[in-house]
């Protein structure tokens, strides 16, 4: 009860501090929102890629696209002789084209698709060696297999991770400075009050508390905004990614919402940490008892 009353009293001070912050509140919130948005976006992207990598990396399938004018039956027979091959499924180009026209309402052009073989293997270790062998078959135009895509994606993810860390660190530093300045201004405008409170025996943490709460509030608002933006972005981007990119890969559709909730939680924690950390540091520096 007692600590609740103290918290309520502190919160009142926080509101009065926010009022004094004026436009700089919005500056802080904008910058922090941008930082959290970029951080959250990158974080979630890496989570999606990670889950793609795991699910694709364990698929025992190779797709082989044949050169025009070769009998898929014949090629399939050759391939089924290779070791570790379980089944070879033939997708004639007519079937693939009909399906695509049905799914995506593409214009009635000449069928541009090749005959395709889906080769299922018995174990993961055989994927790479079989792929190498398939490449030497002259009737095959090119091959694709999830493991390879997964490898490339993984490299891409590592790049995003490093970029994410650098960008987030830079933006967090910028945010800390802006929060520091804002809180410093409020502290200056309350200098006399702070002196009075200190002289009348109000404890330093009670004096600093409202500033730290103020920072935490910045973090919460910014994290919420960033989460809304990430969410909105998903609504626009997901259908596009599914239609334009994933459908051309020989892969089952993969959800783009992976890790959305953990991302929001981490963004919130980071937002509150940066917000309250920045103001704690500033108030520690400028409020002396």
């Amino acid at each position, binding site marked *: 009860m*007692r600590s*609740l009353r103290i918290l309520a009293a502190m919160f009142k001070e926080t509101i009065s501090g926010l009022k004094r912050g004026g436009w700089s509140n919005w500056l802080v919130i904008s910058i922090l929102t941008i930082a959290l948005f970029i951080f959250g976006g990158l974080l979630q992207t890496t989570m999606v890629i990670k889950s793609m990598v795991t699910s694709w990396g364990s698929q025992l399938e190779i797709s082989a696209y044949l050169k025009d004018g070769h009998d898929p039956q014949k090629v399939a027979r050759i391939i089924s002789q290779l070791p570790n091959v379980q089944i070879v499924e033939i997708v004639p180009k007519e079937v693939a084209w009909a399906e695509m026209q049905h799914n995506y309402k593409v214009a009635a052009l000449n069928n541009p698709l090749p005959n395709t073989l889906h080769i299922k293997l018995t174990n993961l270790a055989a994927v790479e060696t079989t792929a190498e062998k398939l490449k030497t078959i002259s009737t095959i135009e090119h091959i694709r297999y999830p493991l390879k895509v997964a490898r490339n994606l993984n490299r891409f993810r590592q790049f995003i991770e490093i970029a994410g860390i650098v960008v987030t660190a830079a933006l967090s530093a910028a945010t800390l400075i802006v929060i520091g300045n804002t809180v410093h201004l409020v502290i200056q405008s309350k200098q006399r009050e702070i002196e009075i409170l200190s*002289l*009348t025996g109000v404890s330093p943490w009670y004096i600093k508390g409202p500033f730290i709460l103020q920072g935490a509030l910045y973090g919460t608002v910014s994290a919420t905004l960033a989460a809304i933006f990430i969410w909105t972005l998903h609504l626009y981007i997901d259908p596009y990614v599914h239609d334009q990119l994933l459908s051309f890969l020989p892969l089952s559709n993969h959800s783009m919402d992976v890790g959305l909730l953990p991302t929001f939680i981490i963004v919130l924690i980071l937002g509150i940490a940066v917000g309250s950390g920045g103001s704690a540091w500033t108030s520690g520096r400028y409020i002396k*008892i």
Partner: protein
Amino acid sequence: MIRLQNVYKEYTGKPALIDVNLHIGLGEFAFLTGPSGAGKSTLMRLLYREETPNKGIVTIGGVNITRLSPRQVPLLRRRLGIVFQDFKLLPKQSVFDNVAYVLRALGVDEKDVKRRVSSALAIVGLEEEQLELPENLSGGEQQRVGIARAIVNGPPVLLADEPTGNLDPQTSMEIVQLLERISQRGTTVLISTHDVPIVNAMRKRVISLKQGQVVSDVDSGVYEIETTR
């Protein structure tokens, strides 16, 4: 209640208090006088731990306050009532809220806050003005608010550094009489002042400082105006 032992305090090499020894007992009422620059405010600041001495010991209620950690300083100040020359009221808060501030910061429940603030305001005679802002009050009334704030926690010691410095003689007298009434309730009161008529009228203990040294200390005394030599 208040004890200074061989206290020496300097500001960047310039001594402000030199070998001060002093004892003020429980419930005592004393004036601290002396010309400008004598070290009155410095002594007060040592007592509420705004400063620490370079040498010597300051104890309040048996506690050596020169050894307090920063976390303990607020605890000390809550046990002291401090009254300032410039009142130090929060300008945007009502009389009531000014007096209530520390209690609320300590999480005292609003019913107790109301009871204690009302009783402090009653003692200083400001029940009617509790909703006013400080700027709408006279200097004397503002100082009463400062005194109400100082006593709201029921401190054993009340320190007032030139509490009448910004007030006219009539009001000054009333303020000092108010402080004297408070001391009669058992509070140790130390007032620094160079207001000769008031000191002389009160006939209380007078401790005189000059150039950082205690030059006289008499019970029921008067202000010594450069009489020696």
